[in-house]
């Protein structure tokens, strides 16, 4: 309950960040994996944290870098480019190795929930989801 209250308070704090550059801390809570036969398996994880730094590029565009804080999130892609609205951040990172491989990151700015999905040949194969909240510090 305490944690939930914390998330709500921090979520509200985040809402007040407005259009400034944003710094968030996110916790991965679930992981989904799709095997070659299309079978999907979801697993709950011990929360594993990473930091999100979003810089305003004007025209509702943003550049976002992810900083893994723990071993579990050690292989995160960066930088993501995308757009920002009052309600969400929608971002994409293109793989330097394969043309049709990319990651997408969507953060709901109201609830703080995020989904980080990896795609290969247009189909997703790995998906992290969890919760983000704002750091009080703006940069």
């Amino acid at each position, binding site marked *: 309950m305490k944690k939930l209250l914390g998330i709500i308070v921090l979520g509200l704090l985040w809402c007040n960040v407005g259009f400034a550059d944003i710094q968030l801390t996110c916790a991965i809570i679930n992981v989904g994996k799709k095997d070659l036969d299309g079978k999907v398996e979801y697993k709950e994880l011990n929360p594993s944290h990473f930091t999100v730094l979003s810089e*305003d*590029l*004007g*025209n509702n*565009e943003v*550049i976002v*870098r*992810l*900083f893994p804080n723990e*071993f*579990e999130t*050690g*292989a*995160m892609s*960066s*930088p993501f*480019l995308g757009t920002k609205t009052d309600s969400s951040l929608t971002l994409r*990172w*293109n*793989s*330097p*190795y394969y043309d049709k491989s990319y990651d997408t990151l969507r953060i709901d700015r109201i609830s703080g929930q995020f989904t980080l999905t990896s795609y290969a040949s247009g189909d997703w194969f790995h998906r992290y989801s969890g919760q983000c909240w704002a750091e009080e510090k703006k940069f």
Partner: protein
Amino acid sequence: MKKLFIYIFLLVLISTSAFAEKIKWTKCKIIEDPILNSFVKVIQDEEFFKKMNDEEKSEYIEKIRQGKTILHEISFDFEKNLVSVDKQEKDEEIKKREDKFNIVNDTIVKVVGKERVLELPGKSTIKDPTTGKEIVLHDKKKQRVINIITYDFSDITATNHMYNGNFKELVVKVQCESNFKGISDDVAGTSGTAFFINKKGNLLTNNHVVEGCKLSKINYFNKEYDANLIATDNMLDLALLEVELKPKAFISFSKDELKKRDLIIIAGYPLGKYLSDDLKINEGKISSLKGFDNNSNEITVDLAINLGNSGGPIVNENGQLVAVAVSGMSKEVTEGISFGIKYSAVENFLKSNKISPNFGLTSFSMNKDKVNKLLEESTVYIFCE
């Protein structure tokens, strides 16, 4: 008929290009160059460098610097949001490069470069979370990188950062000279913001915006109108004007008592037409019910009032006039300390000049879109012919 269409098309083309404003940056000098700096650090220990005297050392470094790109001119077209850079590599011809820029705020525009792949020596590896062993994913290490150039009009600098993975590396920073003086008489005193206070076409702005001007003009929905000066107040820094048009909307006065931390919205044209011809709307809060030097005719607000904002309306959440933007403290010393002339002082000024202010209904609440629409339709860019 076809001919008529061509004439109309050409007319539109001419009328839009007439307002095109270009800002030029010249005489650019490198002020931060981490690659060169790290090179200089390395050669400090080299025997041949140690043997040189100070003059020879600086000559040697200058030679290396000359081998780099020279920026001859950077020009900004705020009509098309295009930045054009004339640059020259050593012994090559001057090349022009054009990029689209995004406006980030009052003083910063950014160019987002194209993503490109950088090949680095080494292998791409990942640690197996279960065994902790390193797994080779690829024989070559590749990174997708993006360069972002930030043009800052407050100090006339251009900074090139390279985003490489989650690193943000400074590539180079240059400082130039500009024909746009920014905070200068170009903008101050000759242009600002005004707003309609009734349907008769009466406008309010600051006295310092129209002072010394033979004829003030406003731009209202892309059409210019002459604005006749009716009355001024030097002490309050207010001016009342009249335009022969019926505005789509006007701003009524608030009846509510002002309180600290009340939410306020400011509309205006900071830095005049040099930034863009789009009305800028910002939010802030009342931080004090007194202005500079205990001036009780003013309020202090926590948002930036830049040159060109002068004379703009400061309204509450319901779009009712709370104050008229008048000045801000120097940005070099303070941040977010600006002043507005209280609506009560404005009301007295209007009554003294036989104009009755319109009061809004206190219970009438407006959503964000309606307030934006009201401000767009009642706030104008005012300039001196």
